[in-house]
């Protein structure tokens, strides 16, 4: 399978988005701060633009108003004719597509970094579409090497045949930074500080690339989804139990067949009935209850990331 084209020129148009979900506070607070004091986002060869992605949701401190913004960047939503009854997030997605895209066009931003939190214990999770995103994979590798103590895990969300739907997919290259656990509506200093540092390092990497650095091929380990598991429910659809204490907080750790995954309110354990080891991620994420997801089952796999040559600098104006 061939990889997608790597950038051949320096990346000039870069954005950092916070508040795609209006109650994930690290990105919101950072974006609000940078809108007042943008110096932190400036580098010699480019300046990143901070964007508050979902202002109405942020104002209400809720994930979304009508529709999850981070599921709204498909061509169906982006290209359909606007109507007065459109959900807030559909209108907003089209605006962001104009600002940062248009998706899949030559005019799209070079790179968008989208900031998120989760109530799940994912630690530092780097989210990209697929293993074919060569620039993003080299960036992830760079973050892993810079911060070995963080154990950054790479999560590749795209299922085969599925169109990308999230905000950073409107740009030519993108990455989601997902830090947890943090409750919705809470701003923790430790998570905030870690996110700030990671954003700075992402921008440093882009600068390094822009200055003419080539990166060699390497082997990368990542996790990709193979299914989801819902909570046990009553006939009426209410919860009948919750994530078992032995699974709670164990994101990215192996789950073997026969291990307990749910504890029923009546006391008994439900066991994992799959046939092979999986790696659960997003275990007990608040926002996923309504999506029918108690955890995402992933498989761990390794792949080769091809070398990324240095960009060809644009001709200087003086010559």
């Amino acid at each position, binding site marked *: 399978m061939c990889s997608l084209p790597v950038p051949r020129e320096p990346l000039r148009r870069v954005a950092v988005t916070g508040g795609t979900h209006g109650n994930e506070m690290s990105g919101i607070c950072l974006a609000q*701060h940078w809108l007042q004091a943008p110096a932190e986002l400036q580098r010699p060869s480019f300046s990143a633009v901070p964007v508050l992605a979902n202002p109405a949701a942020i104002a209400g401190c809720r994930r979304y108003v009508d529709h999850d913004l981070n599921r709204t960047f498909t061509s169906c939503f982006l290209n359909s004719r606007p109507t007065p009854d459109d959900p807030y997030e559909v209108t907003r997605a089209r605006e962001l597509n104009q600002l940062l895209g248009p998706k899949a066009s030559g005019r799209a931003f070079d790179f968008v970094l989208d900031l998120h939190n989760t109530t799940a214990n994912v630690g530092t999770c780097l989210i990209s579409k697929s293993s074919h995103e060569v620039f993003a994979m080299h960036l992830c590798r760079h973050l892993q090497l810079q911060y070995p103590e963080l154990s950054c895990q790479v999560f590749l969300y795209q299922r085969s045949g599925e169109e990308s739907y999230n905000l950073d997919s409107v740009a030519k290259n993108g990455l989601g930074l997902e830090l947890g656990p943090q409750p919705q509506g*809470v*701003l*923790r200093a430790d998570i905030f500080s870690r996110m700030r540092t990671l954003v700075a390092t992402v921008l440093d990497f882009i600068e390094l690339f822009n200055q003419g650095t080539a990166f060699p091929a390497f082997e990368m380990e990542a996790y990709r989804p193979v299914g989801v598991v819902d909570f046990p429910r009553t006939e009426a659809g209410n919860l009948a139990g919750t994530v078992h204490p032995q699974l709670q907080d164990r994101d990215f750790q192996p789950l073997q067949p026969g291990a307990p995954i749910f504890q029923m*309110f*009546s006391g008994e354990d439900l066991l994992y009935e799959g046939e092979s080891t999986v790696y659960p991620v997003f275990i007990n994420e608040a*926002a996923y209850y309504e999506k029918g997801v108690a955890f995402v089952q992933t498989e761990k796999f390794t792949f080769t990331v091809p070398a990324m040559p240095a960009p060809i600098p644009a001709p200087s104006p003086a010559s």
Partner: protein
Amino acid sequence: MSSCHIAEEPIQKVAIFGGTHGNELTGVFLVKHWLENGAEIQRTGLEVKPFITNPRAVKKCTRYIDCDLNRIFDLENLGKKMSEDLPYEVRRAQEINHLFGPKDSEDSYDIIFDLHNTTSNMGCTLILEDSRNNFLIQMFHYIKTSLAPLPCYVYLIEHPSLKYATTRSIAKYPVGIEVGPQPQGVLRADILDQMRKMIKHALDFIHHFNEGKEFPPCAIEVYKIIEKVDYPRDENGEIAAVIHPNLQDQDWKPLHPGDPMFLTLDGKTIPLGGDCTVYPVFVNEAAYYEKKEAFAKTTKLTLNAKSIRCSLH
């Protein structure tokens, strides 16, 4: 030694409220479970009624619809003329007062346990509204002893201006049960287990009491609210500093003058001022950002209870 005890009437009517805040899930699901199968909460001779107080907020998994249900059980709100224009929670409060009160009357429920979660690292917490209530001090002593070595803290909200009109305050003996940390909209098995145990011990205490057991004089350590502290804000009213990493998750631990309290976005530490050591609680509770409360300062003190025994024996 003559026994100088308070003779109390037996307890007859007990309620357990869940969903007063619709996104604090432990109470919601415990109550829903007990509505299906109430065996666990039954005790001989006692009526124990589980009840969802804010069903619309529960359905939307939000703290409240129009206003915070747990702040409006004062006589003014309870006495307002019923109308469709009243906020949903005020109408609901009047219904609840009718079912389990009326507040300050002989007919009200004896005990109401109101189940809550917090995003703060408060562990198992019992909330007391009246420092002279021998019966509740004895109950709390029993629960703490039964839970040990799992810590259980008692938060006293008696204060001339800071005490608030809780849902449970319509009962003769109001008991707040707060367990954290748990994010809003999340149900953790470990937190569920802790809250379940607290209720079990509380009901056991009531049962022993009704059966005639005498509880000798006892003392408990409590944390009494002094004042609430807001986040430092900028000229636009936006939050300008975060709870300092040294204070985050340190509920109930002493905070001394000079200790870090907030960290500004520019990296400056703001220390606790004044002369007194305080014990912070509700540190970084999500729902309190809008109430302008980063944490509450408390002082530690000991409350004593006289011996109590049920008057029927």
